[in-house]
Every structure is written in structure tokens, then in C-alpha cells.
């Protein structure tokens, strides 16, 4: 289901003025500290009453600035993972987790609770109270609490910021599954390019209370002009499909007519898969190189060269697998004599492709 958000609010000193559509899937709100991400989410949740605007899903109007009607928070059926944990201090972890269940119209099965507890590694903490939990433990409980309330809209405000990489890698697939297997619109705030690349269906970039860029993640990421946190985080997204799992632990995928190797990735042949190829991880060569440890070498043609202030340049290439970006130095650009239209080879280490945080990979 899609969610459309249009709102204007004046905080006195800070004005929020956004208008975007979050199509089905997961929409990432991306932007610097203080750019208004949490405020947008609060408005969707009903905790901020905007001066004007309209917030609606396909079948429900949550807020209408014209009529002034606002659905009360508790009837919006949202799951909100707050930026800070906000746990109920007087309830055990278990009762925090299941708090929303009793209000849910369709109450998930008990097995769902066990699954979420398992995924978040909260099994040993169920009878503790939030007071004594570590920071990361608290934020995991808060994730679980929102997920278990059977929401029809999920709002996640930097849910993984306080967690270690291994823990993140255990939780990310859950969000992927939510994105792929349910119809719930998800608004997700994150500062991590990796998280964004991995999860985003749509990216909404914000700056000073305004949307500066919004669109499908694949498009936004293929654009050399979009480098969310400086050019070194540029990278293209490639849609692929699993072909086979090899005995030596590699998974071969089909991306357009091209085939790529990556570390074993869960899924059965035929499953779709999204790969992010960071511009930094791509090397270019005029001739097809030999005897390299890199397994993936794609022929391609330079379509654009973007030079910025720094010593690096961003090269856009078309390859059989799709458009990709490569970040190389000016010096290499000159040495290799690349210009628009030059054919060349993109060398990608297999282990560099793909879903970075997953420890099962690599």
C-alpha cells in the first residue's frame, strides 16, 4: 500500500515543508541531523499536528489539514520505533513486547512473538525490567514492541543505530521480509548508506525541512549526482536473480545478461536480489585483466564522467548488468584516457558486492 505525505508545519525557527509519496515497500528518509526526519514521522504517527497538509494511505486518511480532521494516534494502527527506546519502565520486557498485541485487531500468533524474540536475541531478558538493560538491549526491545503490535504502517526512526554490526545483520532480513512479503508501508530513517542501499525501495532525501530528492532507490543510487554523504558513498544498485549456489560457497546470480559471483546468499534459485556496488569498490581497466583474484569483470562503456572538487571522479558505465558507478582518481582518469563512450572493463571483487552487513555472507 502506498502512503502519501504532504505537510507544512512551522516550529518557529524551523519550518517543515514536505510532500512525497511513499509507494509500496520501504521508504527511507535520509538527511542530516536536524533536517526534519523525525518530525515527518511524528506527523504520520499523529504525535505532531501539522499546520497544514494531508497524510493518507490508499484506503485511509490519517490527517486532513483542510477539514482539520486527524485520526487519533491510537486508531492509526502504526508501529513506531522511536529514536529513543521509550520503554514502559514498570513493565517487564515481555509485557513491553506484547503491549500492543492486545489492542491489535488481528492478533498475531504466539509463534510470532517467539520469532521476534529470537531474532532480537531477547530470550534471556524477558523477565527483566527495562531499567537495567543496556542501550542496545533497550533499542531491541523497542523494535520488537513496534513489530509485534501488528501495525499497518511501520515507522522506524534509526532503529539500528545503537546496535553492533552482527546484531544489525540479524535484524535487517526481518525488515527485508516485511518489505517484500507484506503490504505495509514502511518509513525508515537511517544514516547508514549500507542500510539504505539494502532496504530502500524509495529514497526521500531531506535537507532543512524540505525534500531535496525523492524517487526509486535504484534510480537515485545510479545517479552520480546523488551521493548522500559525500561522493565516497556513491554506489549503484543492481537488480538480480539467484541462479545457482556453488559448492565452494559462492552464489551465482543473473543480472540482465550478465552473471556475477557473490558469497553465498540465502534464497532459492529464481529469487530476486538487490545488489549494491559501491563506486569505490569498482576498478576500471581498458583491457580485460588476467590472473586477478577478482571474479567479476563486466565489459562496459563510459556514459558520463562527473568531476568534483576532490581528487576523485565518478564514472557512470553501462554494463550488461545495468548502470554502475566507479570512483577513480583524476590521475587514473588521465592515465587511462577515459572519455564518454570509451569501452572499458569494470572489475568488482565478488566479496565486495552485495548485502554487506550479513555475516552469513563472507
Amino acid at each position: 500500500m502506498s502512503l502519501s505525505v504532504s505537510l507544512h508545519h512551522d516550529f518557529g525557527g524551523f519550518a517543515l515543508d514536505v510532500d512525497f509519496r511513499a509507494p509500496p515497500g520501504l521508504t527511507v528518509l535520509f538527511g542530516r541531523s536536524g533536517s526534519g526526519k523525525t518530525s515527518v514521522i511524528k506527523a504520520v504517527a499523529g504525535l505532531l499536528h501539522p499546520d497544514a497538509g494531508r497524510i493518507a494511505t490508499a484506503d485511509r486518511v490519517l490527517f486532513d489539514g483542510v477539514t482539520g480532521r486527524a485520526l487519533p494516534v491510537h486508531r492509526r494502527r502504526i508501529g513506531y520505533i522511536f529514536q529513543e527506546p521509550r520503554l514502559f519502565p514498570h513493565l517487564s520486557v515481555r509485557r513491553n513486547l506484547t503491549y500492543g498485541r492486545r489492542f491489535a485487531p488481528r492478533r498475531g500468533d504466539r509463534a510470532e512473538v517467539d520469532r521476534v524474540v529470537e531474532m532480537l536475541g531477547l530470550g534471556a531478558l524477558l523477565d527483566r525490567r527495562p531499567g537495567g538493560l543496556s542501550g542496545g538491549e533497550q533499542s531491541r526491545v523497542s523494535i520488537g514492541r513496534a513489530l509485534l503490535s501488528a501495525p499497518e504502517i511501520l515507522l522506524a526512526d534509526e532503529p539500528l543505530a545503537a546496535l553492533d554490526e552482527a546484531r544489525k545483520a540479524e535484524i535487517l532480513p526481518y525488515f527485508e521480509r516485511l518489505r517484500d512479503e507484506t503490504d505495509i508501508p514502511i518509513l525508515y530513517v537511517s544514516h547508514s548508506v549500507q542500510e539504505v542501499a539494502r532496504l530502500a525501495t524509495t529514497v526521500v532525501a531531506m535537507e532543512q525541512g524540505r525534500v531535496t530528492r525523492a524517487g526509486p532507490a535504484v534510480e537515485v543510487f545510479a545517479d552520480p549526482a546523488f551521493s548522500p554523504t559525500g561522493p565516497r558513498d556513491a554506489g549503484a544498485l543492481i537488480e538480480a536473480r539467484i541462479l545457482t549456489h556453488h559448492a565452494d560457497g559462492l552464489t551465482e546470480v543473473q543480472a540482465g545478461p550478465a552473471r556475477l559471483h557473490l558469497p553465498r546468499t540465502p534464497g532459492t534459485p529464481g529469487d530476486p536480489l538487490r545488489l549494491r556496488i559501491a563506486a569505490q569498490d569498482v576498478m576500471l581497466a581498458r583491457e580485460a585483466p588476467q590472473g586477478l583474484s577478482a571474479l567479476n569483470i563486466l565489459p562496459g562503456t563510459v556514459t558520463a564522467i562527473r568531476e568534483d572538487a576532490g581528487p576523485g571522479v565518478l564514472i557512470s558505465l553501462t554494463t550488461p548488468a545495468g548502470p554502475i558507478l566507479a570512483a577513480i582518481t583524476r590521475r587514473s582518469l588521465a592515465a587511462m584516457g577515459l572519455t564518454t563512450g570509451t569501452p572499458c572493463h569494470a572489475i568488482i571483487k565478488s566479496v565486495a558486492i552485495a548485502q554487506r552487513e550479513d555475516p552469513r555472507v563472507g
Partner: protein
Amino acid sequence: MTDWLGPEEWQALRLSLKVSFWAMLASLPLGLLAAYALSRWRFPGRQLLNLLIHLPLVLPPVVTGYLLLLTLGARAPLGEFLGQFGITFAFRWTGAALAAGIMGFPLMVRAIRLSLDAVDPKLEEAAATLGARPLSRFFTVTLPLIAPGILAGAVLSFAKAMGEFGATITFVSNIPGSTQTLPSAIYAFLQVPGGEASALRLVALSVVIAMGALLLSELLAQRVAKRVAGK
């Protein structure tokens, strides 16, 4: 014990306990409501309500008792009206409880309100996002969090009721067995020369009872605090 106390005193003690207990218990829901209204709602007449609640604190108890007599006495319009439904306060222990409850009401409301003001609204917001209706929110989040204030309010109200006598005796008089509470008995002893010793005995008794209530409330409050602190 029964030796140490005369039968009338014994009766006064029992009555005092009954009156104080019911005064406290009956005030609780109203006190909660009033505290909630004062803390969370903005409505015209809010400050008036606030003042009204504080009145018994400001007025000499006799005046409060007299006002009660004027409004809820058997001959007063409101009193007669309620009397038709079998609700009478005049010269009954219920009247004593009412007077005591009213005298303790400002204390109870203040205590609860202070606790309410200290509840982090973010937690109530969180409950709302999880689908809890206002009433559910109140019972599952707010109420447990203000438990210390409720306890404090209850013990203040109870203690006040154990000591109240000015409004009580003015409103419902002092009828042994139906409205003679410990404080009235104490007062009576103090009116006669040489009654101090007898008065002291009853004073000691009410002190012991109040101490018990106080200790109990502290104990409960500690438990609640521990739970909330996550220990």
C-alpha cells in the same frame, strides 16, 4: 486491650478506622479524576475547581462542617433530595466519612497531581502508537506510574481522616457508636480538667494506627519504585 480501652473508646476506635478507611477509599476515584482534570485538561472553570478542592484546607474546619450542614443536612435541599434515594449523611457515620474525606481531599489531589505532572508524556504517546485508547493508556501506563502519588495521597487522606474532628463534629455531631470518632473522644477528654491522661491514651492509639498506615504505604511505595527502576 479491651481492658485498657473502655467500651465506648473501643467503639470510637472501630468507628474511626471505618470512617477513615471509607473516606480514603471513596475519595480515591474522585481524587484521581480531579487530579487528572487539573493536570491534563484545560477547561473553563479549571482554576475554580482547583480552588474549590483547596477550600477545606483554607477554611477553619468548623466552617467546612457548617457548610456541609447547610448543603447536605437532612433539611438542606440537596440533603433532602439525596435522602429520597436513601442517601443520608446527617448524624450518620457516612457523614463523618464524608467530612473527613472532604478535609483530606486537597491533600490527596495534590499528591496525585504532582505525580501525574511528573509522568513523561512520551510514554503515553508510545502507548497510543501501540493502539491503546485513552482509557487503556491511563490504566496500563499512567496509573502504574503514578502509584507512588496515589499511595501518598491515600495515606495523607487516611491520616487526615484519623485526626479530623472539627468539620466532622460540626456536621454530624458526636453520637457515641455512630459518629463518635477517636478525635472527638480526645477532644472531649481535653475539655475537662484532668482529662489529659485519658486523652493521651487515645492519642497514642491513633498515632500507632497512623504509623502503621504510614509504614505500609512506604513499604508499598518502595516496591513500586523498585519495579519502575527495573531492579
